[in-house]
């Protein structure tokens, strides 16, 4: 596809349920980022991949959050035992490389609602 694709667009989960959010980056993009955007807030960094290597996971809020990118393209963000405070929009972004003059392209996001 032409842009970053995320699925599902909307997800309602019961508290305690596990969820998996998918990100298809732009083909050939080396860098991939996950952000969490709570209602009325700016996005907050969760984790960063360069190809299949997870180089920074300092933003993951707890050990219930796990991300992977096993073949260096598609990435999955998994949240175990979801809690109400996990309700947010999860944004994925990709770029050719992380660095100067490399624009990060964002997907439309997955809106997660935990009930």
């Amino acid at each position: 596809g032409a842009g970053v694709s995320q699925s599902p667009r909307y997800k309602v989960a019961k508290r305690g349920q596990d969820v998996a959010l998918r990100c298809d980056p732009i083909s050939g993009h080396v860098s991939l980022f996950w952000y969490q955007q709570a209602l009325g807030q700016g996005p907050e960094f969760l984790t960063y991949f360069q190809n299949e290597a997870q180089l920074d996971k300092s933003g993951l809020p707890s050990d219930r959050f796990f991300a992977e990118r096993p073949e260096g393209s598609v990435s999955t963000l998994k949240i175990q035992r979801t809690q109400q405070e996990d309700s947010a929009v999860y944004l994925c972004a990709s770029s050719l490389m992380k660095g100067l003059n490399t624009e990060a392209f964002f997907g439309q996001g997955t809106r997660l609602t935990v009930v």
Partner: protein
Amino acid sequence: AQSVTQPDIHITVSEGASLELRCNYSYGATPYLFWYVQSPGQGLQLLLKYFSGDTLVQGIKGFEAEFKRSQSSFNLRKPSVHWSDAAEYFCAVDPPGGKLIFGQGTELSVKP
């Protein structure tokens, strides 16, 4: 710690009027600076960015921003607002080699 402040949560301007959205950052050196726009249900679109050099940066859709080191500011401007500019605007910094740090956002409403 690095941070970004957007003092205005919500701004309303009349169509055709000028616009200025404020952004202040806290960082030890000169960071890379960005403005993004987010329409409802959409991802973030880059409007413009500043890395170095000329402090007045031109972006898409007629937007510009000016970097002022002495004020730690990177305000976004547009001389004449269109109804389609109504959206949420985010200022962000990227400490070189790091990840984007976003402000809280400013919601822009445009009245006819």
